[in-house]
């Protein structure tokens, strides 16, 4: 019993420390002060200013860019990664191993190495940097994770199902759509969510591939902000809203998943 309480409180303390900066952001989103850490009385002004268009349009733009890049990158990586996983699964073990090894390179590489290598690629080819290069770069570091989340599903499924569908006269495409995709869906979904999360949280790769045409994502915007010495106050309520939404979403999904299993 004591052991249980001790281990619960150990996890509790770690979580408390992990969440304390986030609590700070949430608490100070309810005050107007320009500087994070100053309390000038309770106020919802920052929240109303988000919704009444009071925030600078460059921040809104950055937010939209982040979402669009994240969604496009996540969609493309999920499609590319799922196809790749199906292909890899059906390869000879030797080739399979080689491709899997190359697949882990972007995972093992620190952000900045991926960033510099892609920067050199785009510069050498004379690509003008902007939306396209950022999305390509994000697909590069997201797809490996999709491959890794889809492969275990393939291994777990009954390989005869697909063959059976073919024997019963389904075209390969129909068999993929009706047999493979439904089996792989959970893996694809977690790959998609992971890819989206990685994309919107990314800073380093984005910074190196975004060019200097004025395109900004949330993280480059915040970086520029931080270098100027302060954080745009509206980022506090904005982060709070994003965080609470994701938290609720995950709790609901978790509850639903639990119910389905029981």
């Amino acid at each position: 019993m004591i052991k249980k309480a001790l281990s619960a409180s150990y996890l509790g303390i770690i979580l408390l420390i992990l969440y304390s900066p986030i609590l700070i952001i949430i608490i100070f989103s309810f005050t107007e002060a320009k500087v994070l850490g100053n309390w000038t009385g309770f106020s919802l002004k920052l929240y109303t200013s988000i919704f009444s268009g009071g925030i600078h349009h460059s921040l809104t733009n950055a937010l939209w860019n982040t979402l669009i890049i994240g969604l496009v990158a996540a969609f493309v990586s999920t499609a590319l990664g799922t196809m790749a996983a199906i292909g890899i699964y059906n390869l000879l073990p030797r080739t399979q191993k080689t491709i899997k090894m190359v697949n882990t390179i972007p995972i093992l590489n620190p952000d900045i190495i991926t960033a510099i290598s892609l920067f050199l690629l785009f510069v050498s080819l004379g690509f003008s940097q902007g939306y396209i290069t950022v999305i390509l770069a994000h697909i590069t570091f997201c797809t490996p994770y999709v491959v890794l989340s889809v492969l275990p599903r393939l291994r777990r499924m009954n390989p005869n199902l697909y063959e059976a569908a073919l024997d019963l006269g389904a075209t390969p495409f129909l068999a993929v759509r009706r047999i493979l995709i439904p089996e792989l869906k959970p893996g694809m979904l977690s790959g998609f969510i992971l890819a989206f999360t990685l994309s919107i949280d990314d800073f380093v790769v984005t910074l190196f591939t975004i060019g200097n045409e004025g395109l900004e994502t949330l993280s480059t915007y915040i970086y520029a902000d931080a270098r100027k010495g302060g954080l745009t106050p509206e980022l506090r309520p904005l982060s709070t809203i994003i965080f609470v939404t994701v938290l609720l979403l995950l709790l609901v999904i978790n509850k639903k998943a639990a119910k389905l299993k029981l």
Partner: protein
Amino acid sequence: MLKKVVSFSGRRRNWVIPYVLFLAFFVIAPMVLIIYYAFTNPEGAFTFANIKKFWVHPEVLNTFLYSVVVALITTFLCILIGYPAAYILSKMESRKAKLIVILFILPMWINFLIRTLATVALFDFFRIPLGQGALIFGMVYNFLPFMIYPIYNTLQKTDQNLIEAAQDLGANPRQVFLRTEFPLSVPGITSGILMVFMPVISTFAIAELLTLNNIKLFGTTLQENIYNGTWNYGAALSLIVLLLIGATTLINREGNSKAAEEGNLI
């Protein structure tokens, strides 16, 4: 013709082709470019000067060594704090454990720069001076989830029969842990180390924010070189990081390839 196309794309192993091309272009080619730039001068002629510059340039070398030390400390602390957490999680009812694992990953949804700035505010609030201590705290804070998750994953997959067998053979709880559970969880630790050590060396922005620009890590050096247009030198420094990654990966080859296969990395 159409029939040929259909049968070609119908063979499922061919589905890997788009990704292979993609990898060749966006992963392999950029790596080759790093090597190319590292061994050429701005005019494109072959040279060792960039690599040599690293060894004779004490400032950069010092930054590098300092970053390695910070990364070692961070990795060590992450294992020290993360292992018990992962162990406790692995003993919990799986649904509850999964929820807590999600809670560990959730902070990632708030941009890490904002989190780091909030950490700065937190330190100010408690009147803790910014500097080395804050830097280590910030690093552990940022990378702890990457250590907990792979260890939890390996521990959770441990064959319970092995543990019971150890118990049946008369091992006390401590022996069970030290002789059975811990050795079996080493691949998890290995992949955790891979996820923490190198990224810490090459982070940038975190160190500047947490030390008021007093401490610079190797990542910042890399970034400055690319930004200042000294790409060849930047590429040479990147190559050094790459070699280090190659070395750590080779050492951990077995554990790593196995871990990657099980989707342990994240």
